[in-house]
């Protein structure tokens, strides 16, 4: 574990903030870290900014994420990582589909694909216009960004998967990368299979160790922390749990 110093906390949407810290972790797109907030908790977070000042982008949902939102420059937190296997970007035309805070997991992949000269289209979804994450960041990077909102306040009125289908119909991408609610990912993998497009999805499971030992993040035969969190369409098809079951901290099955 590395103890790092927070350099800044930035508002992204009304309930999502980015925390930047001094840490040159050399993360590959799609990898994550276990983030220790001393005396509070340790939680998994996708690495959403790399370089000298790495960063995580956090939706406030409970005690640990609230504590992350309330960090101040100069505060110290612990970082274990980079962990897991990230995206492996192949092809020239990439469609990145992000739902809610899941978009954080796509950030480095979008950034590196554009840096490599690939054409990147993004379909971002959120409940409402004010909650869309990284619309400006991805646009500034040079991606073609389209959005969907549940309430119709901006872009496509409805699911981001419907928006993705429209974009696929317009031009078939070489690869889809995605992160968001698991039912969204399950629907998207079906769309990808129908159109015979390769897909890679980043999954979330309850994590304790983050390094493939404790088994709490098991999904089918894979550990999400060490074998994933990014899985290919082929791997997802083997996982009976995908889109259906996850496990609580005791290991009991519950619906996704």
């Amino acid at each position: 574990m590395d103890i790092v110093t927070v350099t800044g906390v930035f508002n992204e949407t009304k309930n999502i903030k980015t925390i930047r810290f001094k840490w040159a972790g050399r993360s590959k797109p799609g990898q994550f870290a276990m983030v220790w907030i001393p005396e509070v908790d340790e939680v998994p977070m996708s690495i959403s900014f790399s370089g000298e000042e790495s960063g995580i982008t956090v939706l406030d949902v409970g005690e640990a994420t609230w504590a992350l939102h309330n960090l101040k420059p100069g505060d110290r937190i612990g970082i274990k990582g980079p962990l897991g296997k990230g995206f492996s970007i192949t092809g020239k035309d990439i469609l990145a589909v992000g739902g809610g805070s899941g978009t954080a997991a796509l950030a480095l992949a979008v950034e590196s694909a554009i840096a490599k000269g690939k054409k990147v289209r993004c379909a971002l979804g959120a409940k409402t216009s004010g909650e869309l994450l990284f619309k400006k960041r991805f646009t500034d990077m040079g991606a073609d960004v389209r959005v969907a909102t549940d309430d119709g306040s901006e872009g496509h009125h409805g699911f981001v998967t419907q928006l993705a289908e429209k974009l696929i119909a317009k031009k078939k991408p070489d690869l889809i990368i995605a992160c968001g609610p698991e039912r969204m990912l399950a629907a998207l993998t079906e769309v990808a299979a129908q159109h015979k497009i390769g897909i890679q999805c980043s999954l979330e499971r309850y994590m304790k160790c983050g390094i493939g030992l404790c088994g709490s993040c098991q999904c089918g035969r894979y550990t999400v922390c060490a074998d994933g969190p990014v899985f290919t369409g082929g791997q997802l098809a083997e996982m009976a749990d995908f889109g259906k079951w996850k496990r609580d901290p005791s290991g009991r099955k519950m619906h996704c």
Partner: protein
Amino acid sequence: MAELRTRIAGLEMENPTMLASGILGQTGESLFRIVREGGAGAVVTKSIGLEPREGHGSPCLLELDNGILNAMGLPNPGIDSFGEEMAVALKAGAPVIGSIFSDSPSNFAALARKMEGYGAAAVELNLSCPHAEKFGLDTGSDPAKVAEIVSAVKSAVKMPVFAKLSPMVPDITAIALAAEDAGCDAIVAINTMRAMKIDIDIGKPVLRNKVGGLSGRAIKPVGVRAVYEIAGRVKVPVIGAGGVYTGRDAVEYLMAGASAVQIGSAVRERGIGAFGIVSAEIAEFMKENKYKSLNEIIGLARGK
């Protein structure tokens, strides 16, 4: 390749490596994979109790220079929902050993009965968790309590009963003898040792539970010593655990008197293939040194 097939307390194993309890052993599919892809000769499940338990808060596991420090706190889904996991694990074809923990002889017996019903090849009594109040060392360090638990379980089930011991007692042979006298069929040694990590920049213990159990390389000499002492006194087989990463580590345990080894922490470095890799390394050591059977190695360092 040298013959690695072995039989311990009636369990037929393709090789003498087993998955240690608590490492990826919580779901049927992961146990299945550790046999089929990982090459384990047998697998031990996560320790299961009567009720679902979330375990301790996070951070609950740290990688240290020489090992792993964990304070998982015995998270488990509870015995009643474990039957479906066992059913999947058993399809792999290797013996599945059900690990259980509890705070009373009658509850241990009830858990063992359920594990037997689920098809476990044997039951492993966790008498040695160093960081879960009431459920480990309190009982595991008292020979009389250990004997009482082993007897209760022996009279409840027909399958072999293994007792897993902690090294953190003044005389581990006294505990092993008490378990053997009460009828246990094999001794497993060792579980993790109480330990702590303080981060000096933060100025606090890192584990949420403050104290955890140390495993991995750091405890191998303790495990080897424990096996050497126990194997000199008991007649039942001893299964060694603690810091087995390579075939040479496994051979060291075998020479101390172990009939098989369990592997846990090494999965971090060598992946789930650790079992097949360690087995191949044991075979290679045997070939290089012209040993034909495991029996020639087991207990070699003790002069038999």
